[in-house]
């Protein structure tokens, strides 16, 4: 069972970048040649960037490998090369077995066709034979829960139905090697659970899988081994728990500096978080050097408004090193909403009380938006928070899993010969 099914060495992929690239139209090509034939013959000096740089790996039969890294690290490019969608610039890979790739949900779907027709079309594009689709058709429809609508044109489907059918088709691929890119991040919670379940089934049945995901929970749950890509190179290749912890806290280390201008953020930028600072306090409000389980946290946040917005809520989000969101201190919980006009700046102070987090590394994020409607500014990793051992935890040598340090009273009595224990 230790056959190597994927072997790659020196894989590199180069893309052109820059103002003067190769001619994009015939007109352009012709005018360049006319203007200066010699210059046109010479390859123009172009800026290149290497999306992948000397990547090598070995994957054994039946392995489930997680591939993680920041946006732009080269994960999708690697998957595309292994899927033969694009060719490497240098390097080679050898694949033993049939490969199918799932890089998006709904590949090949066409709105005018019915669910049934799209199932066949998409299934065929993804690599299933007609006979295979015939055989699995009922299961696919059942998994997607679109039985009544299977003959309606897909343009009439709700987005939920579309996603369910698209994923159902893809989920019934039976390749020896499966390459999956982020498709677990679609649909509602129930559907995501279903997808995870299917992924687990597939993994358990011994297929080789490479899974690209930002969902650390999924990667931790499904992949015993992970590779971290950073700017096109392999930065880590080993057990997943080590990898995800490293990725989440160190690889994305943002330090505890308070200036947020260079942080990665999402949103429509109508507002901008400019700084954050965290001060641990004890019960009486006295400042502490470090945070301990059960302390208070005083968090100061500054926001600038770039463009008017009306009722928005602000949240402070604390996540653990696996990416699980453990605290979401949201003004919406208190019915408080903020309205700002362009040019205004706001200072907010949050006092989180009795923060019972177990000692460890945490990440603090900031979110400002209008519920599900728009995100004004979201800085996923604004700063770090290290919770140190406190009085309550000092006695213990091992830190047990879990994040919430629940305070409890307990009372244990011991009896001899407990007969008639069922009253």
């Amino acid at each position, binding site marked *: 069972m230790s056959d190597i099914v994927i072997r*790659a060495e020196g894989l590199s992929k180069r893309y052109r970048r820059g103002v003067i690239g190769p001619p994009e139209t015939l007109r352009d090509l012709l005018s360049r040649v006319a203007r200066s034939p010699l210059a046109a013959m010479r390859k123009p000096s172009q800026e290149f960037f290497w999306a992948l740089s000397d990547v090598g790996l070995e994957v054994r039969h*039946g392995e489930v490998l997680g591939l993680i890294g920041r946006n732009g690290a080269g994960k999708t490019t690697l998957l595309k090369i292994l899927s033969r969608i694009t*060719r490497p610039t240098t390097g080679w890979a050898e694949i033993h077995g049939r490969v199918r790739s799932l890089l998006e949900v709904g590949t090949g779907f066409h709105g005018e066709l019915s669910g049934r027709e799209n199932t066949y079309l998409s299934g065929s594009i993804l690599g299933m034979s007609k006979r295979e689709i015939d055989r699995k058709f009922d299961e696919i429809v059942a998994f997607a829960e679109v039985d009544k609508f299977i003959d309606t044109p897909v343009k009439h489907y709700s987005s939920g139905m579309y996603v369910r059918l698209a994923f159902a088709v893809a989920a019934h691929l039976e390749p020896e090697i499966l390459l999956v890119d982020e498709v677990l991040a679609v649909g509602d919670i129930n559907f995501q659970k279903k997808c995870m379940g299917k992924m687990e*089934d597939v993994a358990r049945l011994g297929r080789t899988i490479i899974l690209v995901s930002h969902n650390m929970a999924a990667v931790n749950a499904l992949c015993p081994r992970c590779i971290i890509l950073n700017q096109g190179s392999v930065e880590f290749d080993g057990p997943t728990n080590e990898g995800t912890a490293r990725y989440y806290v160190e690889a994305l280390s943002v330090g505890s500096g308070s200036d947020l201008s260079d942080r990665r953020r999402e949103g429509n930028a109508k507002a901008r978080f400019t700084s954050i600072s965290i001060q641990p306090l004890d019960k009486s409000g006295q400042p502490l050097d470090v945070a301990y389980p059960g302390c208070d946290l005083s968090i100061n946040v500054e926001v600038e408004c770039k463009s008017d917005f009306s009722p928005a809520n602000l949240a402070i989000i604390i996540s653990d090193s696996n990416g699980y969101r453990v605290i979401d201190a949201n003004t919406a919980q208190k019915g408080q909403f903020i309205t700002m006009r362009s040019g205004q700046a706001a200072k907010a102070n949050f006092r989180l009380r009795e923060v019972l987090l177990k000692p460890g590394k945490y990440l603090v994020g900031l979110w400002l938006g209008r519920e599900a409607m728009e995100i004004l500014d979201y800085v996923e990793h604004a700063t770090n928070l290290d919770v140190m051992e406190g009085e309550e935890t000092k006695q213990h040598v091992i830190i047990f899993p879990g994040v919430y340090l629940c305070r409890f009273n307990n009372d244990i009595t011991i009896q001899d010969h407990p007969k008639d224990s069922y009253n």
Partner: protein
Amino acid sequence: MASVTTSSPIAAPLPAPVKQPAIVRIEPPRGWLDLRLGDLWEYRELLYFFVWRDVKIRYKQTVVGVLWVVLQPLLTMGVFTIFFGRLARLPSEGLPYPVFYFAALVPWAYFATSLGTCTTILVSNQHVITKVYFPRLVLPFAAVSTGLIDMAIGLVVMTIITLAYGFRPGLSLLLIPLFVLLAQMTALAVGLWTSALNALYRDMAAIVPFVIQFLMLASPVAYSSSLVPPKWRALYHLNPMANVIDGFRWAFTGHGSPPGPMLFVSAGSVAVILVGGLIFFQRVEGTVVDRV
């Protein structure tokens, strides 16, 4: 390996590693003659599904859209009959003008539409080719196959027109498939070049309509190829559509220019363009995804 008996019976547990797994080697493109035509055969079902998809989508649209397949050549035939026939009095090899023109318009409509579709086939399928692997060659082949359905309808109408004008079908009709194949290979040969070029240089798609216009004038659609002086015939027949159109006219009516040595000129011309097109297309295929 432990086999799983819980949860879904959906997928059968994998057997131990297959004796002869397909070994695929992935590396940068090399060489000019790496044609990989065997891949195309392996993906023949997908070719079928692409054709099926395009036909279905076209025919799901308005009823007029379906009638247009017949209306368009008929209307063009009408205009040609009036202006080139009655008014300009161009010779028509002894055939009634409607028969003369319609016989040319059926294969020409097929060629023009197929070449147009083929040119943009890679770009219009970019969302698929950037997400899944299949030999890109499947797409041009599909593009020149969907038009065959329309051509079949056109042939039926042509048969009706021929019978209406008093011609009786003879054994020459059996040669129609040969001419259809020649038209298809011509569309494919040119289409391989234009689709690859269009993926690289996006304005190709704007140039192709002019190319088609030019080719129409260079083909005996509106006039008879007997107009061409003998010493220029070979050059003229480098355009394979000349033979296709002459062939259609002859096959339906027994009149006109029967297939002769010029057929070899055309076949040779198609072969050269086709092989060149295959080489160019396959060379570009691996990196088309990066440009599309």
